[in-house]
């Protein structure tokens, strides 16, 4: 899709350069701002240090992990489907995770966060597989129709969730749970999020193979890649990060869509050298949106998903219009 697909194959050699260092420094500075932002002053109050350890640090870790993981899963999904408009929230994967969560809540209301997470991950895996199966079975005439169908799939799943929630009086809970927010992230609540670190590492490990998979099944098979297995692994990675992030934080709409597209717009499509940038940009976007969400109606706090939803929608529309201008 991008014209700058393979601009310079030597970029893949240089994983770490000055720019990346500068970018990292900028993101670290941003995270610093995030740590020290809040109504509760951690310096003047008596138990400031405790608050700092119990909420600010977990919150920042959550920002880092979920930002990087969702940006990565967007990227993996785009490679596997060869479509730039795809990510967990435009393919219904997030909705599947929510349904899984709801099912666990219904059958075992007092289950631990780990059980909830397993439910969400299993359902997101099934959902992502259904979407891929659908893409393989259905021939599509336009790349734009893929997200349309994905969003409709999501609508079906969320109508099931709504029905379920309505019958069990969980409807408002569902809304609260679904709206992604870092407000409730604190010690004892967020630790499962560390799991997605594994996803990030795995994506780095599979980077080259995923790049090849991004060229299509035939080419990938021709160069000796076990495409089916990679598809399974990729789906599992997406499902784990979507499921875990949905359970701990909620849905982060459009994040996986904006970040990989911005990075590939600037840097081209070499996955291995882009990966650190995708991580960094993901963290940066989540952190900035979280800062906006926390300060705009201070002392109250908006869910970050509202800010992401609005910003993401604008970026998404800009992308569509851009694609419309350069005739495909």
């Amino acid at each position, binding site marked *: 899709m991008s014209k700058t697909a393979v601009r310079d194959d030597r970029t893949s050699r240089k994983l770490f350069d000055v720019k990346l260092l500068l970018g990292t420094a900028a993101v670290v500075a941003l995270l610093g701002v995030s740590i020290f932002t809040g109504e509760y002053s951690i310096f003047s109050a008596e138990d400031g240090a405790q608050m700092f350890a119990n909420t600010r640090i977990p919150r920042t870790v959550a920002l880092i992990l979920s930002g990087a993981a969702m940006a990565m899963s967007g990227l993996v999904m785009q490679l596997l489907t060869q479509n730039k408009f795809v990510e967990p929230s435009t393919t219904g994967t997030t909705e599947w995770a929510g349904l899984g969560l709801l099912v666990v809540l219904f059958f075992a209301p007092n289950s631990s966060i780990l059980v909830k997470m397993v439910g969400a991950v299993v359902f997101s895996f099934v959902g992502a597989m259904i979407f891929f199966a659908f893409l393989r079975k259905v021939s599509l005439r336009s790349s734009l129709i893929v997200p349309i*169908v994905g969003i409709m799939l999501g609508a079906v799943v969320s109508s099931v969730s709504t029905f379920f929630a309505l019958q069990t009086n969980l409807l408002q809970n569902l809304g609260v749970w679904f709206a992604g927010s870092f407000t409730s992230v604190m010690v004892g609540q967020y630790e499962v999020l560390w799991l997605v670190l594994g996803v990030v590492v795995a994506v780095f490990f599979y980077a080259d193979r995923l790049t090849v998979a991004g060229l299509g099944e035939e080419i990938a098979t021709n160069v000796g890649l076990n495409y089916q297995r990679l598809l399974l692994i990729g789906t599992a990675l997406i499902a784990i990060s979507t499921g875990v992030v949905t359970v701990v934080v909620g849905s982060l709409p459009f994040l996986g869509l904006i970040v990989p597209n911005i990075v590939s717009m600037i840097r081209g499509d070499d996955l291995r050298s882009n990966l650190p940038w995708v991580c960094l940009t993901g963290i940066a976007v989540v952190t900035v949106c979280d800062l906006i969400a926390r300060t705009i109606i201070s002392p109250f706090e908006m869910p970050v998903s509202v800010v992401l939803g609005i910003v993401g929608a604008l970026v998404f529309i800009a992308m569509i219009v851009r694609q*419309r201008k350069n005739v495909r």
Partner: protein
Amino acid sequence: MSANLFTPDAQPLAQKPASVRANRGAGAFSTPKARRNYIIIMVALLMLSALATLGLLAYKNPMPFGSERFWLIAERRASAVTAMGVVALSQAVATVAFQTVTNNRIITPSIMGFQSLYTAIHTATIYFFGSAGLIAARNTEMFVFQLVLMVLLSLLLYSWLLTGKNANMHAMLLVGIVIGGGLGSVSTFMQRMLTPSEFDILTARLFGSVNNADPEYYPIALPLVLASTLLIYLNSRNLNVLGLGKDVAQNLGVNHRRHSLFMLVLVSILMAVSTALVGPMTFLGFLVAILAYQFADTFDHRYVIPMAALIAYMVLTVAYFLMQHVFYAQGVVSIVIELVGGIVFLIVILKKGRL
């Protein structure tokens, strides 16, 4: 011969094709059997709808049939039945026309952001003015305001995205959906701040239900729906050509852009009326369009449109009758329809294998 089978009040538009059909050699149906099947199915649908309508109006009416009090009760029930008729007509006709114009059988106009707009308007009303405000806002002005807002939004979309040099239907759809998503997250945020009782009141309004319809709205809603339906129906032949795709349509001398725009405007009026009247119904239109194409066994819109409308009416009346008198779960009618429609949607796309 079949002209008198269609009773005027149930299906006023179905009279015309029968007379036209009589003098035509090459018909819309591949075989005489297909045409016979079409007529049989239409008659069966009519009888079923009439039965369900009668049931909705008269079943368990405590007063003896024919008495003055009986009619008073029937009249009140007739308001809900009218809403079903309006919704059936607008959803079915809009979906069939929309699918043809967008040249895609699996999408429905209701994903275009109308319901997000509806949700946003209602949530904002209860958020800023409380539940009293939401009840007070139940008047004709508000209804018209919603209609105008929805139609304006879609007009903006169409004119911006469909009239450029590289006009692209899919881009337009996606932009509509994404705007809807953005509005949706704003609504979610506001819903979060509501007290549980306010939220309950809002929920009742946000699920599509014919009980949301206020008879006060009918003088505005009915003419709009009937006129748009009539215009779409009269343009059936153009729709048949548009369905062949842009290039073919242009080759055949149809101004594709102008006709598409015209159709889309009518579709958005229909969808706006239906949504503002009873609330969102995402998959009803999809469900009936699929069924109509399946049963009608033709691509001619003069036959598909009436059948789709009749199926929609039948589905709604039968569903409400069953839920009211058999399962005693009237509140969830639309959700059940959504579920069935959603599942059918999944099955159809996976079985069909193309878009």
